[in-house]
Structure formats: C-alpha cells, structure tokens
C-alpha cells in the first residue's frame, strides 16, 4: 500500500474539521437543541389500541382530561402491525401518579371498543431531569480527565502531557460530531446520547493510543534519526491497515444493528446505533488526521520557541 502523507495534508484536515464544527455550532443555534424528557422533565405516554380510532377525537378527550394542550402522534409498527397513540404534555409539565391513572381510566371509558392499553409512560420531574443531565456530564468529564492522566503516564517517553491533551482535542472533536448528528437529525438529547459519547470517547482514544503506541515503538527503534513529522507519518501509515479493518468491522456491526432495529422499529436502539456509526468514523478520522498531526505541530512550535 502506498504511504499517505498525513502530515502534508494536515492543513486540509484541519480546515475540513473546523468547517464541520462551525456548521454544527451554527445549526444548533439556528435549529435549537432539544432535550429529551429524561433530562428536561415532562411527560410522554403511549397507548396501543385496536380497531379504528379517530386521532382528533382522541386528542380532544386527552386534552379535556389533562387540561393541557398536549400533542398527539399516531403510528403503526411495520413489524407487528400494532397501532399506537403517543401523548406528549406541553413543555416540561409532568403528571402525578394519580393524575396519570385518571387520564388512562378516562380514555378507556370514552373509547371502550379500542382495547386501549398503556405501552409506556415516561414522566420526569424537571429538577430531577436536570440533575441527571448534570451527573452524566460530570461522569463524561471525570472519565476524560482520568484517560488524559493515564495517557500522559503511559506515553511519558514521547512527551506524555502534550500527547494526552492532543488526544483530548480529538475527543472533543468527536463529541461535537456526535452532538451534531443528534442536532441535525432532530433527535432530542437523551440517555443514548450519553452512552454514545462515552462509547466514542473510549473508541476514539483507543485509535489514538494505537498510533501513539507505534510512535513510542518507532522512537525507541529509530531514536532521533528521523524528524518528528516523518516519524508520526510513518507510524500512522504502519498502523493504517489495522485502523481501516477495525473500523470496517465495528461499523459493519453497527450497521447490522441499525438495520435490524429499523426493521423491528425499535427506536431506542436506532437513536443509539445510528449516531454511533458517524461517531465511529469521526473517531478514526480525528485520531489519524487530527491528534497526530496537531501534536507534531505543537511540538515543533514549542521547539522553535525554545
């Protein structure tokens, strides 16, 4: 396989990444960011029903029972043929257990022939939702910090701290991309977002570590005979086939999961595996094209100043 001059192309990579990040930030300003009920609080109830059910009549009855201007979505599951009605309370309004029971009983009385049954309820108090989000973000921050410390320690031979920090720059890049996928696909940020972010952090850092590992090894073998720029280029190219094959297999697995989840209409899995695919690709890209080249530039910049 021909060597790819990653270092030579680094300016192009940086530009591409900056443009993507700018688009995502702009998009989230324009489109707005939606938080899931899990984080912002609120109430979503879904009922399954049989036979014909008039959506407007159902909506009217539900509005009357809750006294709120809620929105209704009707859908049919392709795989099972089940009909569902999903009620969403406006804003962050949630219902108490008693109110919820009264709504369900009221709807059953009004639509006795449709055999209504509760499929799922998601009712979250706004304060507790905000606390859950804060806790998730803290977990992400703490995990990242510990990973930087670990990388700094293991790669102290090749200037651990700067390597660790550049690894984290690549991670931030990936988190922004995952965030962008949620924003652009209009998926509200939920627990899956946190799970994807954590997964990508682990994956992307793993990719970066494989490259750093090769740099560490080559440094030991070649010493200072080679310039840093060439050393990094060589290391990325040597580990390139591994990077490619690992990415192909993991993306392949995630595509299978997404397709099957789509056929079964399991939304909770699609919103996990879909963004994951793009996150995986971003993780590989950022490790090869951002972390390594950026690190070389930083080291050269520092050496030039000293």
């Amino acid at each position, binding site marked *: 396989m021909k060597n790819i001059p990653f270092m030579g192309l680094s300016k192009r990579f940086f530009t591409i990444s900056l443009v993507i990040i700018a688009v995502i930030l702009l998009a989230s300003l324009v489109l707005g960011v939606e938080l899931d009920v899990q984080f912002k609080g609120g109430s979503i109830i879904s009922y399954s029903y049989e036979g014909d059910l008039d959506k407007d009549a159902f909506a009217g009855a539900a509005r009357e029972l809750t006294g709120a201007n809620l929105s209704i979505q009707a859908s049919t599951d392709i795989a099972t043929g089940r009909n569902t009605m999903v009620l969403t309370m406006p804003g962050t309004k949630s219902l108490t*257990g008693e109110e919820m029971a009264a709504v369900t009983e009221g709807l059953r009385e009004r639509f006795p022939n449709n055999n209504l049954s509760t499929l*799922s309820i998601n009712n979250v108090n706004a304060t507790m939702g905000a606390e859950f989000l804060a806790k998730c973000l803290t*977990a992400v921050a703490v995990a990242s910090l*510990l990973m930087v410390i670990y990388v700094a320690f293991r790669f102290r031979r090749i200037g651990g701290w700067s390597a660790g920090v550049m690894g984290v720059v690549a991670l931030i890049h990936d988190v922004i991309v995952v965030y962008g996928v949620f924003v652009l696909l209009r998926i509200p940020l939920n627990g899956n977002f946190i799970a994807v972010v954590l997964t990508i952090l*682990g994956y992307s850092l793993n990719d970066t570590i494989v490259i750093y590992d090769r740099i560490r090894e080559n440094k030991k073998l070649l010493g200072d005979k080679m310039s840093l720029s060439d050393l990094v280029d060589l290391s990325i190219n040597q580990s390139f086939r*591994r990077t490619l094959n690992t990415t*192909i297999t993991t993306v392949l697995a995630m595509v299978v999961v997404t397709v099957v989840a789509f056929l079964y209409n399991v939304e909770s899995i699609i919103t996990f595996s879909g963004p994951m695919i793009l996150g995986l690709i971003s993780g590989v890209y950022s490790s090869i094209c951002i972390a390594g080249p950026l690190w070389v530039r930083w080291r050269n910049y520092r050496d030039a100043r000293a």
Partner: protein
Amino acid sequence: MRKVGKPVFFVVVSLIALLIILSFVGIHWQYGDITTTYIKGAKDIRWGIDIRGGVDVTFSPPEGYDASPEDISKAQAIIETRLINLNITDYEIYPDMERDRIIVRFPWKSDEADFNPEKAIRELGDTAMLTFREGAEVDANGKPTGVTENIILTGDDVESAEYVYGTLTENGPPKHFVSLKFKDSGKQAFADATERLMGSQISIWMDDEMISAPRVNAHITDGQAVIEGQFTAASAAELARKIQGGALPFKLTTENYSTISPSLGEGAKNAMVLAGVIAYLLVGAYMIWQYRLPGMVACISLAGQIGLMIAAITGFFGFVPSFTLTLPGIAGIILSIGFGVDASVITAERIKEEMAIGKTIDGAIVAGYSRAFTAIFDGNITVIIVSLILMGSFGPPNSILAKALKPVFFMFGPTTAGAIYSFGYTLLVGVVANFIMGIFAARLMLRSLCRFRPFRKAWLYGGEK
C-alpha cells in the same frame, strides 16, 4: 521460547466450547416438580425493565416537607411491605436520605397479562395517611365532614392488621374478617371511642378515601378488635393490607416514573439477538477473508469472549445472583466485542508485518503477539477507566466504587440510572474477557495450530503464497 504442544489447541477449543454450552444452556436438575439450578443458562438472565417491562418510580415527600432519615427508612419499609403484599418480590429499592427520595424499580409480573402499572404506582405511594374517624359523614366529594373530621387514631397507633378466616363465636359459621391490634399509644383512645360511639360507626380512611366504616358492637379496652361484614377473602385481605401498610407519617408523591410494557421490550430483545448473530457471522467472515488462520482463531476467541460475558451476566453458578441486563447493557456487549475484534486485528496485522520482514512462522507469531500487546493493553485499560466511572456514578449507592467516587459526585443524589450502570458493567466484563480470550487463549491456539503440517504455510498468516 518454549513451544506449545499440538494438543493445546484442542484443549483450549474444547474448554471454550464447554464454556459456551454451559453459559447458554446451563445445568438444571429436575426432580419431580422441583428444578435445581447448578449452572445458570442464558434463559436465567435477569432482563432489565426496559426489556421485559416494568416500573421505575421515584417517591418523595410533598414539597416543603422536611423528612428525617427515620421517615425515609420508615417509608422504605412500608413500600417494601406493600410490594410484597402486591406479590412483587423481584424489586430494587434505593433510599436517598439527603434528598428525601426513594427510588423503586420492579418488573412486570410475568403471570399477569393485565397488569396495571398506574394502579400499582398509586397503591405504592399515594395511599399513605391512615386515619380512624368518628362516624361516617361525607360531603358531596366523598371527603370527611361534620363529626367525621374528628380523628380518633392514626395509622401510627396500629400494631397489626391481619386477614383471618375462622369462626368469631363458638358455634358460628366460619367467616372472612380482619383482626386488628392497637399499640399501647392507641388503646385508651380506642377504648374511649368505642364506649362513646357504641351502636354508631367508626370510619377508616386512607387519605381522603373511606375504605371501611364498621359499626361499633362492643366496648373494646384491650386494643384488640375485629372488623366483620360481607367480606370475601380478597376484600378482607385487601383491607387488612391497607391498614397494615398505612402507617406513613406523610403522603408520598410521584412525579418521576416510567413504565414500559413487556410487549414493547420483547421486540427490542429479539432484534438485538438477531442483530448480534448476523453481526458475528459477517465480522467472522471478514476476519477469515482478511487474516486467514489468525482470523479463524479470532472467531473462536470471540465466541469464547461472548461465552464468558454471558456467564458473568447470568451469575453462572446457581448461588451467585445474576446481573440485570438492560438495552444499554447489550450495547456494552457489542462494544466490547468490537474491542475483541480490534485486539485480533492488531495482532494479525503485526504477524503479517513480521512475516513480511522474513521471520519464520513461529518467530512471527511470537513477535506479533508481544508487539501488539502494549497497544491492546493501553486501549483496554482506558475502557476499564470509563466503565468503572460509569459503574461508580450510576450504580447502587452503597458499593465500594460509589463510595470511592463520592468526593466527585457529592452534589448528586444516588439517582441511579440502572440502564447506564448496566452499560458500564458489561463493558468491564467484556474487556476482562477480551484479555483472557483475545490475548491469552488466542495466542495458545495459534501457537499450537502452527505446528500442524497443513498449517505450516506462510500465506495462511498473511505472508506470500
């Protein structure tokens, strides 16, 4: 380096095969009607409520009420009693003393097709203030009015309430009734009331709902009474349960809960299992196509890794409790299998490189594994860091990990998101299994296989044909 014997491959493969069979099928011994489980199989996995359906609810005292830790413990005990009364034994309950919350999670009862989650949540939390009141006068809304506003006793004064089927008088017919016993604190008040209200009613209220209004037939001084009437076994038992469980000093509110029906989760489970099988076959085919013999070994070690993970989730041995597997938990399994594949890819690439610089097959395998090790090791350790953080911050509040992380997460209550905890657990187990299978077992298998004549061909290891 010492050579690995030819039989080693067969030993390792049979051990892996045994592990997979045991972890999927388990060992059960049936004697008459009783099944004893020695080794748990895949069907003994405890599925999370997001898969098999169930209820996740957070109870808290009304706004503005500052509950003491004793109050919360008491509320927890009451909820536990009520859960058992509802015949739910497979529950998880986490009290949060600092934030005055109680988190309860329980699965859908499998034998009950028509389980009503709203009703269960309401029964657990909302029926809390038990009072015995004078008379049985209600206003238009069914609320107590007039003399009935006078409270004689509260649930605090009740020692016990039991459902009994038996005779009340010596030769009378057997009946269903509720036997009540009051604490010393309530004996005097009850004696006074039964004397004063002889022939009229004493009503029993659960919050603003009158659950019974028996007529006083005797002056009771010893604090022991019975409620009789047109009871069936079920209605008498329900009344006894309400009286028994009702001694909570405050009302519990539930603004935070979710339920999911089993039919919804079942589809997700089947989808994930199907996706897992397809993904394994595709990835396996790709690995063999790319790496030939090392790819073949990777398929076996991956299967072993999956077997180990299933064993860790079921608890394997009959006496070890199994782990609750949620949807994110399954995602964790898939992810760690990804790490398993990565370990095989890194190693196979290294072996190929060593072959390319002209090493012998044995030399290339030994060098390939040792060179690949640091990268695999560092990558997997970082994943372990992530999984430990997740387990500590979202797991049960009294675990060692949670305590170690307390200084970091001090401002958050144990708002345990069981789903995310499950992700951390399967990831951790998966990475450990990867060390055992992907590195140790795979190396043994390859070094043993390469001694067989048909496998002594360079192209099988990525060399020239």
